[in-house]
């Protein structure tokens, strides 16, 4: 659906994008993650044709958007960070205009406005002037505008920024419901939002793609086998003794007693390879029951910090 090849964007002497490449499959919901200035909005603006690239190619639905921008734009809907709303228009008028702008005939645009208002729960406010709407509703109108004409590719730049918790939940639900029928690329600062909505993540840092994978895979790949969580049943002193005597354990600490005589430990391995089997056997030899021994999974936030060396807002 979307192929971005070696995208470079210079603002004067500043290199905003340093050769970004990625591709997005049909029906995926992809999250673009990165700090301010990482290049998320610039990437989105280039894909949508709002900005030009210094070099590189963008293919939308097999069409080179730099060579045939008008054709390529037919396949995308865009919700910028600040929704582009004409505040003196009513919701219906605005959506009809967006439809006609996308090449729909007057009647089709009217029907399409009707459909997207239903999709985004705006029907009750169809005749309200946009300037009289709340931030959440304005964001919905922006999303509805992007949906007009049923574009297969939706680009949403920070769609949840500035919304209250309830509105965030609504917006999240709406975006999730779009997956399957649309390919969605969204950027966000809120890592938990990306984690809950997207099935694929691209991490940008300093104008480069730092990592790209499925959300779950990204956490697994970036977790190391050195940090383990061990839950074992038995005498606390005996468990401490076994852990101390085991040569492949570098250090350990008690997290707490999870049940009567069942203790949870954090264990740090001295070896690079997976020690879960060996650790299990250490306790099995002494006929102690190991309830679980797991590699500690990194959260998306931890993955982000690990990859970029910076902390992003939660």
């Amino acid at each position, binding site marked *: 659906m979307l192929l971005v090849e070696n995208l470079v964007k210079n*603002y004067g002497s500043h290199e905003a994008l340093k050769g970004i490449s990625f591709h997005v499959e049909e029906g995926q919901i992809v999250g673009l993650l990165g700090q301010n200035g990482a290049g998320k909005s610039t990437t989105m603006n280039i894909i*949508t*044709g*709002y*900005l*030009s690239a210094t070099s590189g190619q963008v293919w939308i639905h097999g069409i080179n958007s730099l060579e045939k921008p*008008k*054709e390529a*734009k*037919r396949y*995308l809907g*865009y919700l*910028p960070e*600040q929704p*582009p*709303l*004409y*505040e*003196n*228009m009513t919701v219906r008028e605005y959506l009809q*205009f*967006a439809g*006609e*702008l*996308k*090449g729909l005939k007057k009647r089709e645009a009217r029907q399409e406005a009707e459909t997207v208002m239903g999709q985004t729960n705006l029907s009750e406010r169809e005749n309200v002037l946009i300037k009289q709407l709340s931030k959440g509703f304005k964001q919905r109108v922006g999303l509805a*505008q992007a949906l007009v004409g049923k574009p297969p590719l939706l680009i949403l730049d920070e769609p949840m920024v500035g919304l209250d918790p309830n509105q965030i939940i609504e917006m999240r639900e709406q975006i999730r419901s779009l997956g399957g029928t649309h390919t969605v690329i969204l950027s966000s600062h809120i890592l938990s939002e990306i984690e809950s909505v997207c099935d694929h993540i691209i991490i940008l840092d300093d104008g480069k793609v730092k990592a790209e994978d499925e959300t779950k895979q990204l956490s697994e790949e970036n977790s190391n086998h050195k940090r383990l969580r061990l839950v074992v049943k038995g005498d606390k002193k005996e468990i401490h003794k076994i852990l101390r005597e085991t040569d492949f354990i570098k250090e350990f600490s008690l997290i707490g007693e999870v049940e009567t005589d069942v203790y949870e430990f954090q264990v740090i391995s001295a070896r690079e390879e997976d020690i879960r089997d060996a650790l299990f056997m250490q306790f099995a030899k002494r006929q102690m029951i190991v309830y679980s021994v797991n590699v500690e999974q990194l959260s998306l936030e931890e993955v982000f910090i690990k990859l970029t060396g910076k902390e992003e807002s939660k």
Partner: protein
Amino acid sequence: MIAIYKRELKAYFTSMQAYVFLALFVCITGIFFSITNILYGYSDFAGYVLSNSFYMLFLYGIVIPILTMRLFAEEKKHKTDQLLLTAPVSVWEIVLGKYLACLTVFMAGLAVITVFPVVIACNGTLPIANTVSGYVGMFLYSACMMAIGTMISSLTEEPVVAGIISAVTGILVLFFSSLVSLLPDGTVPTFIFFGIIIIGIALLFYFDTRKLWISAVTLLVGAAITVGCYFWKTDWFAYGLTTCLNWISIEKRYEEFLNGMLNLSSIVYLLTVAGLCLFLATQAVERRRWR
């Protein structure tokens, strides 16, 4: 383009803009009509109202900038240009749609002030040919000024700034011939004039491309053409400066229409200037994508 045209036209009438424009246009025309045609009894509407310097000063220094000031500046300010520039329409269609809407509102005003010559025709003898050519001239001259206003609006983010620059430009264009008459004539001033133009173009290329060699080549080619022209048409250089400036003056062309002359070259010239300004507006919008 039609969608943009319709939205823009509606925006004029859902805001105060079109009403303020129409009220001022009709009111100012009415005042000058009352003074010259009714009070003094002159029957030539084009010759005494449309060509009146104060009338033109009001019209092109205040009224026309009101129409063009927000065309692009406001879109940029409210970031609604993102909707237009990411839609499957070309920048040229966007510029043309907006410009035509602006022109339509002006034509509405022009249609309303037709009532004044009709009043004269009903109560006296109206020089019809003069009036018709005056109206054609006013339409073309205003179309030119609106294209200039559209271009200025595409260069800034502040509608008020666009309005002020358009007003100043309107006044300068209006008094262009008078300003030209103040300039000294002769070979040296002509050389200096062309020199300034060539250096200006070279600097523009430098700031646009940041490539010194392009500016150097422009300077050399410009200098070569100027010197070549000097040897080829030495006589022309004696009056080259004023001849050249008077030729490009759009206000001089307008005068021809007010004097009852429907000159084809002037029609073509005014349309070309309008087209060029719209082209530059397109380039200014396009250029922002490359910033």
